[in-house]
């Protein structure tokens, strides 16, 4: 009776454990590279999962104006936010089918590893240790940035060498923290770090003059400065030093082990850049569908001379690029809308211009 039930339960637990145990032994037998090669069988399921779910879960920032920010109306806005929409438009055909998951810098990789988000588009810098040790795959760099230092305009610091003995505020869990240490060490200048998880207490500390400098990616500093309240002196009260302390290539990140998903997201993200190169914008995309240029026609998913649409084998719909451009825009539109010279951040294209204009944005051909 009771005894029998307990014995059966115990036996069931034994059997279950045995089954899972042997499965894992097979998986554990391969190392990281072997499982990646089997991408198709090994967890190459996220693309179809997202398509079935009908919604993309995107890990984002909610505290950086221009990149990932929540407006007073509760809407997410920013460069990275727009790229989340780009991926959703490409894979699901609907730029609004996105669930934005705000993450702190410390949480972001753990959230990605655990599968809480499908893709992380959160001003994340591509580094070797993150590639190797965080179980992450980095995709095409959407924004080439560098680390900078922001100080109060009335202070006398013109370069990092002047900042001996200062206290510097920085967000924890970022490459900024590590670069700060190595830059100051390389110059043999001593300083005291003060690290915070969120921008709010950090900003408070900076306002109250608890720290003399605030270091972060220059784009983030520009965003913060653009939003600086008038009662603290407005943007003119702050100065960003000219020195660039490091390379910060920012781009989307996906989990290791799912080649199909990584490739699909990668080509989705590169579509706006190719569109700018072809001169396709959200305004003229409908006309461009009739284009005589076979490159543009193929790119926008129009049937070729043989009447068939081009199938790259990526798992994306044939007209994904057209969907992206029509619903979100090309790279220039995304850039100008969020961080360009007409936006509060006022950042020039600089190295983020197309390669044809002397910048670094160059994507492989779509054929």
């Amino acid at each position, binding site marked *: 009776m009771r005894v029998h039930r307990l014995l059966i339960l115990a036996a069931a637990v034994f059997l279950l454990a045995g089954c899972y145990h042997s499965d894992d032994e097979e998986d554990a037998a391969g190392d990281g590279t072997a499982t990646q090669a089997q991408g198709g069988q090994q967890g190459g399921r996220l693309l179809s999962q997202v398509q079935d779910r009908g919604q993309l879960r995107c890990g984002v920032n909610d505290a950086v104006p221009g990149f990932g920010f929540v407006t007073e109306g509760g809407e997410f806005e920013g460069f990275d936010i727009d790229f989340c929409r780009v991926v959703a438009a490409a894979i699901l055909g609907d730029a609004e089918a996105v669930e934005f998951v705000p993450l702190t810098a410390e949480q972001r990789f753990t959230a990605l590893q655990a599968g809480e988000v499908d893709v992380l588009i959160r001003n994340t810098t591509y580094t070797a240790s993150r590639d190797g040790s965080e179980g992450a795959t980095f995709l095409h760099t959407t924004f080439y940035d560098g680390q900078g230092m922001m100080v109060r305009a009335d202070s006398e610091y013109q370069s990092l060498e002047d900042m001996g003995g200062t206290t510097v505020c920085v967000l924890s869990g970022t490459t900024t923290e590590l670069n700060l*240490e190595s830059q100051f060490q390389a110059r043999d200048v001593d300083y005291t770090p003060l690290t915070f998880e969120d921008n709010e207490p950090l900003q408070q500390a900076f306002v109250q003059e608890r720290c003399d400098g605030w270091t972060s990616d220059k784009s983030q500093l520009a965003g913060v400065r653009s939003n600086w309240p008038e009662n603290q002196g407005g943007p003119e009260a702050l100065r960003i030093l000219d020195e660039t302390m490091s390379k910060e290539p920012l781009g989307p990140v996906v989990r290791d082990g799912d080649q199909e998903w990584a490739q699909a997201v990668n080509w989705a993200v590169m579509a706006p850049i190719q569109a700018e190169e072809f001169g396709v914008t959200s305004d003229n995309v409908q006309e461009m569908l009739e284009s005589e240029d076979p490159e543009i026609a193929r790119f926008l998913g129009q049937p070729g001379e043989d009447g068939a649409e081009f199938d790259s084998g990526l798992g994306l719909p044939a007209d994904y690029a057209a969907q992206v451009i029509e619903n979100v825009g090309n790279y220039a539109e995304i850039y100008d809308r969020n961080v360009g010279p007409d936006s509060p951040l006022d950042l020039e294209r600089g190295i983020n211009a197309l390669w044809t204009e002397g910048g670094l944005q160059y994507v492989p051909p779509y054929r």
Partner: protein
Amino acid sequence: MSANPVVTRRPPPWRDVRVLRVVLQLAFLAGVGLLVLFLYFNLTASLRRLGIQTGWGWLDEPSGFAIPDSDFRSSQPISDALIEGAVNTLKVSALGIVLATILGVVVGVARLSTNWLVRKAAAAFVETIRNIPVLVIIIFWYLAVLLRLPPISSAVEWGDLLVLSNRGLVVPKIVGEGDQAVFGVFIVAGLAAAVAAWIWRTRRFDATGEPHHRVLWSGGVVLAVALVGFFAGGMPLAVSLPERGDLGTREGFRLAPEYAALLIALVLYTASHIAEIVRGSILAVHRGQGEAADALGLSGFQRLRLVILPQAFRIMIPPLANQFLNLTKNSSLGVAISYYEVTRVTRIAVSQAAPAPQAFAVLMAIYLFFSLTIAAITNLVDRRLAYKGR
């Protein structure tokens, strides 16, 4: 059939309660063990699939980040960073426990005072602080109080002795200078002499009943010997006075606002809980004890110190131990205000590519170590003071 012999024959094993008990417990243990193994293999397989390392090698990697207010270099391994963090946790927990106990006892006794104002003030303190989450108190003290102290450019200075700003409170520090070996020997000798003095005075008290004043005697012995040693060793101590610069103070002993905010918040919060425990323990002491003390003509303070509190103390030790553990664990909330205690260091390490499961396992082991130590000490005290019968 026939007569029913009274046999003590054992039933078959599958009906024998004693056998079944053992078998079922073993089966349950085995089940739990297999579940744990299953989870473990699942975890390592997933980590391997993601390419995250599953071992402990990450502890030797250079940390890459700096820890303020310490000599820690970023080239030192992560294990050193964790130790530094654990020391910081210890600094805030140890001092926090001491201060919280003192404040808690005072407030607890105050709540039972015959003075109406004292009683109500203590009650207000306890009821307010107890009902606010610790994190809110910590953030409040940091953002709303300590950061609002004057910035370094307009710091408050009190002669050469004290500099107060939102970068910290700096006071003179005593530093060793020159050869301290002779002085050190005298200090050790002084401590030994103090112990001897303590024992002597206690024995004398037991024999004759004269007040022992043993604290004064031991303290005096230590001071006297230390003084002799100081001069004998060639005065190997110097005072380092704070010097205010534009960016902070050099020299002196600095109390960082992050540390101070965390300490104050933890002390206030834990003291409000300890006050209630103290109050309950005092009320639990038999009323006859208080009446007997009055009958003997003891003053209010003597009654408290000689009769009530010693007995209340025995009662309150287990709940006090609980509060000490809570304080130690609550120190992990220092992450909110940039205090580099061990949880913060672990989180920084994880965000800089240390594997999360192992790092947090180490963190939990560190807290377990602290907690078990506190529990062991309080158990020891409890056993020594426990009521032996009534």
